[in-house]
């Protein structure tokens, strides 16, 4: 795949292959263009956005604090676990374990733990900690991998832990802490989104208000959320971190009692189909066979098709948008571009999908657009940062305007862009699975239905399928990145 002569030509070929796959995927995705009549609804949404209103400020403030608490504690714990996992990432078992735990979307972890711990702080924390630990493990391992080995080589035969504590971790510290900071923003989003399934974070109110068409109230919650995300760097100081973590512990919502017998029952009975528990082999096979043929196969096709299309569209949008958010490319207009990207990456995809559904009707199309807008916005934001950071090292006689973008910045950013996109691949896959709520038959649609029907055995099996799919995508992404010579970009 890698062109031996020109890196650019090699990356171009790779990009074109992905574009081709995306175009083919469109034929498999459940795409249909309807012509709805959305203007009443859209004008209500528009009016709501500019007339935010919330009757009870303290209620909003409490859920904002819960949102931050979950995110902060989730990141603090999972970053530590992630370092531990990353230390042993050369073991295949650890890599697979990390891939599996991060392959399940926070919402699905939340739904699973809710069956055991109810609507408690523990459910919310575990739903963030588990997938985030897997993500940290992977990225930290990549970061360690990219450090020069000179310092560690001087330590001789020191044990693994010492080599990390004295060598790798201090050496990689700037990269690690910058990634943790980035991840905190993601955790804020995850924490908010867990409100969609009932945890007392901002998403709880946002989802209710939006679903019920109270757009002014939805807007109030949304603007608060945006304010939190947009101002992280003004209030999250490293030296206050211990204080923040302590405060976050006390701000967690109270824990309802947890009944141990339910935990036992859940893991030993609820998660497994009845014929399996009875030792009925043919019944078990027919149960799994039915689920696979009726749900898994059609769902896999939709999930993969939507993912591939959304992946490429995210990339195209990111490349189109990021220059407008880079001071080096557009000067002070970059503030407008940055605000746009802040909004795009903060709006939960499910809401974007709903907006697009109003415009294009119900099909896979709104899901693809929503995933692409959100992920494109996120990648564009990271690329704009790279572009601004590189401004100091650019030649003083650099070209200006469009030519500056095409000849200088774009080619300079392109390897990092592709790496970011491939990192995002499994995330998009995860998120496309939850687009099922739009009635598009992705894996998430069937998982959601199984939870609604209180069929945890089926939900669990489908989650495992989603996890395996993610593990596969993750390993393909890893291979592609390696073959194309792409390294982990700064996030």
């Amino acid at each position, binding site marked *: 795949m890698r062109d031996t*002569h020109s890196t*650019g*030509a090699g990356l171009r070929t790779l990009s074109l292959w992905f574009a081709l796959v995306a175009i083919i995927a469109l034929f498999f995705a459940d795409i249909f263009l309807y012509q709805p009549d959305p203007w009443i609804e859209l004008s209500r949404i528009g009016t709501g956005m500019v007339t935010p209103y919330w009757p009870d400020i303290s209620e909003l403030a409490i859920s904002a604090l819960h949102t931050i608490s979950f995110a902060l504690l989730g990141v603090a714990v999972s970053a530590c676990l992630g370092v531990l996992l990353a230390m042993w990432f050369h073991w295949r078992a650890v890599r697979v374990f990390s891939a599996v735990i991060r392959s399940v979307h926070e919402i699905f972890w939340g739904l699973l733990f809710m069956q055991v711990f109810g609507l408690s702080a523990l459910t919310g924390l575990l739903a963030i900690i588990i997938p985030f630990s897997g993500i940290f493990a992977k990225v930290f391992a990549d970061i360690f991998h990219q450090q020069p080995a000179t310092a560690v080589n001087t330590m001789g035969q020191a044990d693994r832990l010492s080599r990390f504590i004295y060598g790798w971790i201090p050496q990689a510290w700037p990269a690690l802490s910058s990634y943790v900071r980035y991840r905190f923003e993601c955790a804020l989003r995850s924490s908010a989104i867990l409100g969609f399934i009932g945890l007392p974070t901002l998403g709880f109110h946002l989802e209710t208000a939006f679903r019920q068409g109270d757009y002014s109230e939805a807007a109030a919650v949304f603007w608060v959320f945006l304010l939190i995300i947009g101002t992280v760097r003004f209030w999250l100081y490293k030296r206050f971190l211990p204080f923040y973590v302590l405060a976050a512990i006390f701000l967690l919502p109270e824990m309802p009692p947890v009944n141990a017998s339910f935990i036992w029952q859940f893991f030993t009975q609820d998660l497994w189909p009845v014929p399996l528990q009875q030792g009925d082999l043919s019944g078990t096979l027919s149960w799994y066979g039915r689920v696979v043929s009726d749900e898994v196969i059609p769902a896999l096709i939709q999930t993969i098709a939507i993912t591939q299309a959304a992946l490429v569209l995210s990339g195209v949008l990111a490349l189109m948008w990021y220059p407008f958010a880079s001071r080096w490319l557009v000067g002070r207009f970059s503030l407008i571009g940055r605000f746009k990207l802040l909004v795009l990456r903060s709006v939960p995809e499910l809401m974007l999908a709903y907006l697009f559904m109003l415009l294009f009707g119900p099909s896979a199309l709104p899901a693809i657009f929503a995933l692409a807008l959100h992920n494109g916005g996120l990648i564009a934001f990271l690329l704009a940062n790279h572009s601004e950071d590189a401004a100091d*090292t*650019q030649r*003083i*006689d650099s070209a200006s*305007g469009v030519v500056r973008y095409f000849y200088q910045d774009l*080619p300079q950013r*392109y390897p990092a862009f592709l790496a970011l996109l491939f990192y995002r691949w499994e995330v998009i896959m995860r998120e496309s699975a939850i687009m099922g709520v739009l009635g598009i038959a992705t894996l998430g649609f069937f998982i959601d239905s199984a939870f609604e029907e209180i069929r945890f055995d089926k939900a669990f099996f489908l989650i495992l399928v989603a996890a395996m799919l993610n593990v596969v995508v993750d390993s393909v992404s890893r291979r592609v990145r390696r073959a194309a010579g792409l390294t982990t970009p700064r996030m």
Partner: protein
Amino acid sequence: MFQLSNASFSHGSLSVLHDITLDIVEGEKVALVGPSGAGKSSLLSLLWQQNPEQVALCPQESGLVNILSVYQNIYMGGLSRFSTLYNVLNLIRPWASRKRDIAAICQQLGLSDKLFVSPDKLSGGQRQRVALGRALYRQQPIFMGDEPVSSLDPEQGDSLLSEVLARHSTAIVAIHSPELAIKHFDRVIALQQGRVIGDWPTADISVATLEDVYRDA
């Protein structure tokens, strides 16, 4: 053509150039010498700002775009001569006439077989030649270079430097080698710690004078 009177320049809080007074006229070939950190690069960028349109610049941070081909990297020198659309289309598919121009430059630089190789696959010396190629393709009367041949072997550096100087009527080049400075230039300006400590016609000095400049630092 270039004039500075009592110019100073600082990089953040760090003062880099003090009280520089200079006058460079058209047709002069000037070598800037001095130990590293003396302010040669800053002086070059100060001078460049006086007439950016007519200068072919070859700075130390070569500004090569790693994933574009050698062809595109050299073509970048000519961006300002063509329309935006022409430039963008060239990125998708090189224009035949431009390819001829640039292939000719590559031949001179000894890079004929590297036209569509990307610079990240080249050696340090080859990369420096690509950067020189970009400056040549600027096709401007004035050349400003910052150690433009430092990574080349002496023989090749020598011949490329004379080639570059022959193609520009005026040149200001920061250079580390006293021999090259004496051999190729009419005038030598020596810098130390941000000040001009000497400004001689080449005829008046010897290699030894310049070696002193480096030794004193």
